[in-house]
């Protein structure tokens, strides 16, 4: 709550923006950080090489401090999720008309969309 209040303040300096970014990364709430940015803050970030340089260290601190949380206790369950996703893609590719059937259809399409959207 306190972090959210801090994030919503306007006219944050570059040091506050970096610390807020690092905090958001640590707490897994990057969308809240992105939404909290004002136009001036976004411009400040864009022109600050120190901010961009320091984001790498923020990610490393996040990785060293907290990455162990990311390992799922049940890999078998995760494997069945992956298999279900593969089965669904396989079904879609079999269902598509033979003329349009391509092995990498979905990946290529998604790739193009992603490149344009961000």
């Amino acid at each position: 709550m306190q972090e959210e209040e801090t994030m919503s303040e306007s006219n944050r300096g570059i040091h506050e923006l970096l610390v807020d970014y690092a905090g958001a990364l640590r707490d897994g709430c990057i969308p809240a950080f992105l939404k909290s940015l004002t136009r001036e803050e976004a411009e400040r970030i864009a022109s600050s090489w120190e901010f961009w340089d320091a984001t790498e260290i923020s990610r490393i601190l996040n990785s060293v401090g907290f990455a162990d949380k990311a390992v799922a206790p049940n890999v078998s369950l995760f494997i069945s999720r992956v298999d279900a996703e593969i089965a669904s893609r396989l079904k879609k590719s079999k269902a598509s008309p033979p003329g349009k059937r391509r092995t990498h259809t979905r990946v290529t399409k998604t790739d193009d969309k992603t490149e344009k959207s961000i």
Partner: protein
Amino acid sequence: MDKRLRNALKGLTDPDVERRRRAMEPFVRATFGIFSKYLYRYLGNEVECEDVLEDVYADIWESPERLRNITSETQLLRTVYLYYMRKRLREVYRRINRNLYLSQSNLKELIAPEIGTLEMVSQSELEQNLRQALSKLKARERRAIELWMEGASNRAIANELKTTVGAVKMLEYRTILKLRKMLRYYYHEN
């Protein structure tokens, strides 16, 4: 690269989709820990990590060509990040892309950046070097970062250091820049 991972990679490039599907299980078992730890540094959220990885593995199954001729774990991680994880990371934030003031290129760089000098160093090496760098900081700087890494809020850190939240933010910022300088110097020297 260990034998388990090498064997898991072999089956992935089979042209038959069903055989490739069966090969995914040993591959996921051998790589899930490595990939999820790596991805966590960009997301900071274990649920998101699993969701992204589910798509990453399915993408690998669908299009495994990039993983031919992989000879080391570092090369595998680098390839998977560049060709599979990055596009999925960008997709996570695509839905909130509207109404943001950050430009698209800045958003892309913040969410799924190019690989930095330090980001391809193994986790254990990073931990060791970060510990060394932390030991060279001033006591107050070290304490602020240690508390931050324990999950303390800026208010809690300010209370512990008997100062204000604003001063803590400035201290953390300067310390992060200092750590960056120390770690970069170390890796350039070596």
